[in-house]
């Protein structure tokens, strides 16, 4: 007879703590962590180098610049976590799931970025002689909190149930989180080279620390309770981006990230929701782009018609969907792995085809390697997207205009994704993914549903493609390949979905942003970028195959595992 021990979900009455040796290391650890954090933060106020030749100007006493800002952030986070560890009133909210791991991560982050900074200074300026005493002080100071944090015993608290805050407070928190996200994103997008690398390091450790502290889980809980507000806040933050005054280059980056992210979200329908392996997805983006190019009045277009924008979008989506149906119908009836090869083949065939439909090796539809140039800018309701307008005192240039337009498309795709994910169709997809035989036994026509997913994904990519055509002025065959150094291409799209976390909305968006920015910003690694990308994929699948953003089911699974442990 089995007896199952049932654990209740309330907080344990008396946590079973192993009384390991003296409590001294704990209090010493806390002290070191707190003091060290403060010192590290303070060290950013002195100069680390004597020459502004190192980017970011770390020469000013009394004000942090460049990489110092990142060290400052890490130091402050360390102090925050340490105060939480002390249980100081007013700061207990900071580390609901336990302070130790979070402290270790924040401290390590500070150490990493500070030593990276000192190293970078020595490297670029040619010798550690170029590092001012302030820099050495910072390097030493950043070791202290790490020592302290590792002296602390493990702090495996069962995460406390959050105190129920009044609604307005929760909404405010969500808005604040959105704002913070915007700030981090804008900062990141504006950095280059070493600063970007430092930004990645800091952001990585900080995110990990926040996750281990339980704060990210709290945030997710908040957003789950106030879904509409969270979505609205994110949308507002996104709309605010063009108004932050970043110059046109960054706007161009922003709109391309948005396109990449939207396409990744479309792929997430196919791969993340329905579990279909599509390795040639970027071809659907291309179909949409070429369709738009052909019908939007470009002089080189073989069709020579100029449809209004909404019709072009419709056309792009429909033609893409058609190709999706054509490819899907024969392939989805058979084993899933075949789909991978067929889609890969389709991706390649698409590229070959558009390259050769230039009038010489094939009828002239796509203009061959030269593509279709000079696509005219959109003009909707009198608003010329190509021109700069001043709105609310901020000049919005061409890319900013297209950014806002694309945001609309992204919002639609997000809504589509959410609505279809939580519906009879979405459930059927998950069922097929879990166990196709059982799903058909439950009355699900698996072929029909897989085809719907595939066609929907294709349509979404096609729509994104129509905007891309206008943003890039011209459509050429080059970008639509399986793998290449510059996203979007099928491998990068798949990676964005997998890195971010399949089946979620935030996952592909974050994954896409990271995958677009990293190769772009780390130009000094150009030759090795693609190699690093390949290796990164291998490591990612080995150590964190679920990606960065765990989806609802995995979270439930982890919670349940924790409760019955």
């Amino acid at each position: 007879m089995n007896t199952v021990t049932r654990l209740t979900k309330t907080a344990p009455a008396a946590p079973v703590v192993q009384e390991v040796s003296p409590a001294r290391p704990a209090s010493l650890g806390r002290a070191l962590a707190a003091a060290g954090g403060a010192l590290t933060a303070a060290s950013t106020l002195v100069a680390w180098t004597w020459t502004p030749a190192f980017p970011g100007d770390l020469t000013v006493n009394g004000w942090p610049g460049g990489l110092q800002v990142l060290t400052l952030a890490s130091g402050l986070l360390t102090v925050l976590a340490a105060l939480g560890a002390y249980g100081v009133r007013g700061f207990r909210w900071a580390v609901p799931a336990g302070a130790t791991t979070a402290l270790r991560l924040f401290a390590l982050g500070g150490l990493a970025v500070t030593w990276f900074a000192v190293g970078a200074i020595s490297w670029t300026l040619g010798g550690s002689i170029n590092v001012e005493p302030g820099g050495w002080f910072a390097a030493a100071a950043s070791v202290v909190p790490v020592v302290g944090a590792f002296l602390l015993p493990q702090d495996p608290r069962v995460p406390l149930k959050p105190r129920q805050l009044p609604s307005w407070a929760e909404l405010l928190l969500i808005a604040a989180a959105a704002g913070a996200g915007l700030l981090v994103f804008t900062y990141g997008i504006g950095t280059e080279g070493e600063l970007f690398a430092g930004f990645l390091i800091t952001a990585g450790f900080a995110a990990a620390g926040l996750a281990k502290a339980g704060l990210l889980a709290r945030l997710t809980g908040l957003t789950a309770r106030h879904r509409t507000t969270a979505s609205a806040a994110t949308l507002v933050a996104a709309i605010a981006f063009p108004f932050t005054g970043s110059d046109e280059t960054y706007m161009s980056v922003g709109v391309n990230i948005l396109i990449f992210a939207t396409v990744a979200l479309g792929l997430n329908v196919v791969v993340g929701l329905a579990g279909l392996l599509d390795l040639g997805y970027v071809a659907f983006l291309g179909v949409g782009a070429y369709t738009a190019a052909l019908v939007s009045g470009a002089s080189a277009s073989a069709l020579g018609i100029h449809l209004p924008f909404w019709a072009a979008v419709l056309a792009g989506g429909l033609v893409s969907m058609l190709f999706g149906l054509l490819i899907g119908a024969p392939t989805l009836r058979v084993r899933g792995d075949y789909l991978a090869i067929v889609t890969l083949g389709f991706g390649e065939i698409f590229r070959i085809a558009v390259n050769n439909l230039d009038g010489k090796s094939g009828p002239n539809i796509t203009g061959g390697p030269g593509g279709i140039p000079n696509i005219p800018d959109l003009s909707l309701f009198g608003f010329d997207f190509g021109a700069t307008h001043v709105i609310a005192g901020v000049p919005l240039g061409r890319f900013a205009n297209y950014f806002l337009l694309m945001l609309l498309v992204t919002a639609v795709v997000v809504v589509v994704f959410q609505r279809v994910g939580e519906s009879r169709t979405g459930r059927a997809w998950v069922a097929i993914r879990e166990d196709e035989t059982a799903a058909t036994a439950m009355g699900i026509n698996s072929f029909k549903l897989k085809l719907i997913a595939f066609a929907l994904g294709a349509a979404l990519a096609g729509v994104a493609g129509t905007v891309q055509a206008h943003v890039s002025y011209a459509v050429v065959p080059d970008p639509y390949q399986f793998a290449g150094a510059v996203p979007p291409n099928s491998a990068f799209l798949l990676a964005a979905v997998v890195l971010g976390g399949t089946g979620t909305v935030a996952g592909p968006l974050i994954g896409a942003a990271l995958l677009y920015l990293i190769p772009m910003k780390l130009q000094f690694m150009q030759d090795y970028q693609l190699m690093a990308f390949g290796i990164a994929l291998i490591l990612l699948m080995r150590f964190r195959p679920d990606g960065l953003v765990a989806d609802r089911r995995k979270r439930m699974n982890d919670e349940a595992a924790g409760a019955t442990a």
Partner: protein
Amino acid sequence: MSDEYVLDATGVTMRFGGLTAVRGVDLRVGSGEIVGLIGPNGAGKTTFFNCLTGLYVPTEGTVRYRGTVLPPKPHLVTKAGIARTFQNIRLFAHMTVLENVLVGRHTRTKEGLLSALLRGPGFRRAEAESRERALELLEFTGLAAKADHLARNLPYGEQRKLEIARALASDPGLLLLDEPTAGMNPQETRVTEELVFAIRDRGTAVLVIEHDMRFIFNLCDRVACLVQGEKLVEGTADVVRGDERVVAAYLGTTEGAAA
């Protein structure tokens, strides 16, 4: 007259290359009946089930449900009115208990992609109805308290019950149960027995494969015994229990220890 039989299988034969797994089996189940299917391991019972549900296309023979020949596609068979559970539990492990049953409801609802995107009143109503029906079934099987648990976290006995609830969600006229009490203790087996009676009382006929003789003989109106792909004997519990060939084919006593 033929549609008083919920199931009418005639001459069902299944050959895989050189191996004949099921040979000329006839079986009828009337509405309101509970019929048992017994036989030693490898006798072809699950293969026969798979022929009934369209997972295999029988090499010979026909399967009729309420008089109509069934198309050999599992989802159409379920749509027609035959539902099943599996010998090795095949739940949707990463879906919740409620979601599993909702999926079972799929074939009785029709809200598709467009409806999901537009979220009109029809969609909302359909979702509400499905949820209500699903919860009802969870109540019926005693799982209502765990509606939001992940299926994989349920204890074994409850997973079996969930499979049954999920199968019932498609409002079948005939439920095929494949070894529903495998691995259960006598207490759980008794609960399952009562559940099957309740299912029959709700209007669903049941065809059950089992090794637990006491369970089968308590439960079933009729029992058929399959040995090496052929139907050896069919009749009431006493008839089958007393048949020497059945006893010889099985190594168990009439006490019927679970396999």
